């Protein structure tokens, strides 16, 4: 047995105290922290202030018109009748048409990029989708107005001829007339929805593709090794794994579609009627209402427009928040060993 020499000084060890850790910043760090916090507070004031301002401006309008503000369809300031019933229905129908078109295309494109495209062009395709998202909405609006609308009107006639028994495909015009009346089929929620679909499609597609690309490689290879076809692998592994991304991406797109202004403003013929007939001329959305009526608005009308904007903001906020929750939850399932 060996023994270590013990120095007599250590036989009586000194009092050991833990090193002091300063939690509060000092000197330059204090300045940094204060500056950052005050800028954060300033931004909170600006951004939160907008929301609070909109809510505050909505109070007089809601007090004056009450629930009728949400159900009344007319917007007649001279008769003191203001309501957003028609524009809310119009907003939702334009967004619904856009999602009906954009959802399948976004899903197919995302699946193509992540599973079917040759590896050499994959990154190019991803950039193209991002580029598509960066194209300004006014350009999609012009595309929809000048190029697509005549074709969309012809397609609307065909839809009415063959599916006219569905209430949403009815139009107040004779589809079997010798020369069909194009002016009854343009400027509709359907035409606007096509342009809006082009805008929301890349956004949804990007979210979906990102979630698909996180599918564990091991599970995909396992499916193929068990003898499944490529589609079998996609159906049983990729799509179930990416379900959260599919739903979340679609809802993010929906949030964008609800707030889209300029393409809709360019295409639609404004009309203040609650109508579920998406193929017929004339509709309106909240954002198009604001863009069309702000100029000649009195103080009370401006407050009503702000209320309409606030309602739109709240709807978009709810949709976006739900989408964020769904997308985040789907990511938490990514812990599977690859």
């Amino acid at each position, binding site marked *: 047995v060996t023994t270590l020499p013990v120095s007599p000084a250590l036989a009586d060890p000194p009092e050991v105290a833990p090193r002091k850790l300063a939690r509060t910043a000092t*000197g330059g*760090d204090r300045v*940094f*922290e204060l*500056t*950052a*916090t005050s800028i*954060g507070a300033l*931004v909170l004031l*600006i*951004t939160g202030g*907008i*929301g609070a*301002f*909109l809510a505050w401006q909505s109070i007089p309008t809601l007090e004056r018109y009450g629930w009728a503000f949400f159900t009344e369809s007319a917007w007649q300031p001279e008769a003191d009748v203001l309501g957003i019933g028609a524009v809310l229905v119009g907003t939702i129908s334009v967004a619904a048409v856009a999602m009906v078109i954009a959802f399948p*295309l976004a899903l*197919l494109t995302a699946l193509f990029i992540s*599973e*079917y495209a040759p590896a050499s062009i994959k990154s190019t395709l991803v950039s*193209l989708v*991002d*580029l*598509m998202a*960066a*194209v*300004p909405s*006014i*350009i999609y609006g*012009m*595309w929809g*107005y*000048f190029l697509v609308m005549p074709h969309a009107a*012809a397609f609307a006639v065909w839809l009415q001829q063959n599916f006219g028994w569905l209430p949403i495909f009815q139009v107040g015009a004779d589809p079997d007339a010798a020369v069909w009346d194009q002016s009854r089929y343009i400027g509709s929620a359907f035409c606007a929805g096509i342009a809006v679909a082009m805008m929301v499609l890349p956004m949804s*597609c990007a979210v979906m593709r990102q979630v698909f690309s996180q599918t564990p490689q091991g599970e995909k290879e396992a499916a*193929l090794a068990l*003898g499944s*076809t*490529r*589609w079998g692998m996609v*159906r049983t592994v990729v799509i179930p794994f990416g379900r959260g991304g599919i739903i979340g991406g679609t809802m993010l797109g929906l*949030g964008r579609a*609800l*707030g889209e*202004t*300029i393409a809709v*403003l*360019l295409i639609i013929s404004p009309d203040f009627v609650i109508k579920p007939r998406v193929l017929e001329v004339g509709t309106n959305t909240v954002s198009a209402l*604001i*863009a069309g009526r*702000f100029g000649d608005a009195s*103080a009370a009308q*401006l407050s009503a427009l*702000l209320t309409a*904007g*606030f309602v*739109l*903001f709240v709807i978009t*906020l709810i949709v*976006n*928040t739900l989408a964020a929750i769904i997308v985040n939850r789907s990511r938490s399932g990514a812990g599977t060993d690859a």
Partner: protein
Amino acid sequence: MTTETAERTLKTTHLPVADPDAPPQQPRPGLGKPTSEESFALLGTWLGALAMAWLVTQQLLPLDGWAWLVTTWLALGLIFTVVTTSISGRRVDVSDRLAAAIITSGALVVGGALLSTIGFVIFRGWEPLLHLNFFTDDMSGVGPRDPFDRGGIAHAIVGSGIQLGIAIAVTLPLGIATAVFMTEVGGRFAGIVRTIVEAMTALPSIVAGLFIYTVLIVAVGFPRSGFAAAMALSVMMLPIIARAADVVLRVVPSGLREASLALGASRWRTVWHVVLPTARPGLATAVILGVARGVGETSPVLLTSGVASFMVTDPTDGVMNSLPLYIFKGARSPELMDIERAFAAATVLLILVLALFVLARLVARQRTTAPRPSLLSRLRRLAQHQENR
């Protein structure tokens, strides 16, 4: 193998018997490189569908025009895919081939839509672009029916530049400082700021414009001007940039931060010398994409800037035009020449966005490490080192 051993084998084990009715064993189609038979089936399917679609739409039914031809071609192609695959394959193969056809054609439809958008805008607007004055003149005194060698969009380009410049000068420091606050300082208050900023990204751009219109123009009495438009753009871009920068800063590895702090650097120095340089390409991408969003946004500008047909360089001095607004007004005009000018301006805007986008990609790809010194300089340094010894 001798006959003797063969007989013994026959006694102990059963040899597999070839079944003449069984389908030939084939590898699953759809994995790996397509065989020549598959390629031929694919080609034949879509050519046959095209011929059939032409026959049906152009010769038999009254469905003229290329739109019907393409639609029918797609539908018939899917049907033909099912038919040709079921000749040789089983149900699994049919559904696999059909799914591949649907997914590929869906992606092609999207690609075609993007191409048609860009192509259509350039096709309708190329003529004014050939005149140099389109880029150097403004529209003051130019009538709607004047030829293209008079007037231009210089005022709109300059207006867009000034408005965006002010908006960037406001949002860039605020947005990045907020992101630094949310990630580097933290705490409960930062959580509140993050929640509010994320919520405000849902603000529709038209509502941002209406807010500035109500506060700055109606309540304060500020004139419609480039400055008001810049404020509307800032309100719209601030949450977007702050949120994107926050995402970028959050993925900076915390090992780098901890290493810097362990070396004795203060938190401020850690942020300035470690976190921000690491995140620089990502931050630049976030900012550039935010700017690309801002340059094409029409609705906030529509409410706040007013329309001028002449050059305005002072952002506080009355109405000012910008590219998206010019395009919007032109597209709504009944004059054909105005519409054509709008398409030309749209082409310019598209090129601008494309340039910003490519710039974002280049910045994101940029390597921050210095390039390796050349062989010659390394040898020279080595020689110098030897001499000094």
